């Protein structure tokens, strides 16, 4: 078992280094491979973080452009997805902050997406039971839950990604989980 774990971590490390080398060279073949491998996870992360389906494609595209532009900043010492998500996170938060400054008149002209993306993304009964509660949950809780239970990141990795101390991250997961559990209980 420990040997298996070691092999996985070693291959993971090599993979990160390979990605770092390719990004330094702005290798388009590698970028194509990365887009194919991580695009769905990136979209899912942005969806959990913001619940703004109408903006996600633009953010995803801009994230990949930034990955190319700032490829030299990725040193291959951490998992690629944590670096990718941190770029996407900063970009989405900045954009949402900018959008809050638009006038009400301008905001009225923006198309509104009234259906929660979680309702349409619920693929079974268990997900359907959580969908409405998930839509009402604060983004920081949704983000923490996704990173812990979907992406299987450690608390340390999540802490590094979101820029919050480990106890804060643990607290967000605990609170988010508890809120969903109470909803789950009442729904059943």
């Amino acid at each position, binding site marked *: 078992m420990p040997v298996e774990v070691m092999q996985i971590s070693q291959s993971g490390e090599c993979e990160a280094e390979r990605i770092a080398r390719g990004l330094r060279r702005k290798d388009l073949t590698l970028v194509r491979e990365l887009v194919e491998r991580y*695009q769905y996870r990136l979209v899912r992360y942005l969806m959990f973080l913001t619940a703004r389906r109408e903006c996600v494609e633009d953010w995803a595209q801009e994230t990949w452009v930034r990955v190319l532009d700032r490829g030299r900043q990725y040193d291959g010492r951490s998992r690629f997805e944590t670096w990718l998500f941190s770029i996407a996170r900063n970009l989405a938060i900045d954009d949402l902050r900018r959008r809050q400054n638009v006038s009400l008149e301008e905001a009225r002209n923006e198309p509104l997406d009234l259906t929660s993306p979680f309702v349409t993304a619920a693929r079974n009964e268990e*997900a359907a039971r*959580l969908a409405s509660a998930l839509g009402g949950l604060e983004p920081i809780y949704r983000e923490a839950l996704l990173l812990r*239970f979907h992406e299987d990141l450690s*608390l340390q990795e999540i802490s590094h990604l979101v820029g919050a101390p480990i106890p804060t991250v643990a607290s967000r997961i605990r609170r988010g989980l508890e809120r969903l559990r109470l909803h789950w209980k009442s729904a059943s």
Partner: protein
Amino acid sequence: MAGEARISGIAPQDALWLRSHVADCAECAQYEEEVEGVVRGLRSFAFDIDPAMNQRILNAAAGRVRQPMPARWWALAAAVVLVVAAVPVYKGVRDARREKADALLMEEVESRVWRVVPVAMEPLTQSQPEGSK
């Protein structure tokens, strides 16, 4: 502890204790079942994405990579033009300087000759009257 086991993990001996406790405690067993249900539910969300999205993203990325190439070529061409134009200008300036320096030197030589020759001829001019005496 059932929640902590899911969030940050617990020590193996605590996990063993939790297992035996949950087997006996209906309340904790229900709590654990609810937490597991939430985690399973979270993992069941699947978002539809436009299949053409990847291609659009790759096109944007490719455009970004190709963009700096013309700029590089322009910079290289500008450098070559600069060097080609600078060589004759440098040569012209160098030749003009040389001509000026030569002219100055000639002037200096001539002025020295005119100054030095009369001085050199002074003993001759002084000894002539004695000789003539």
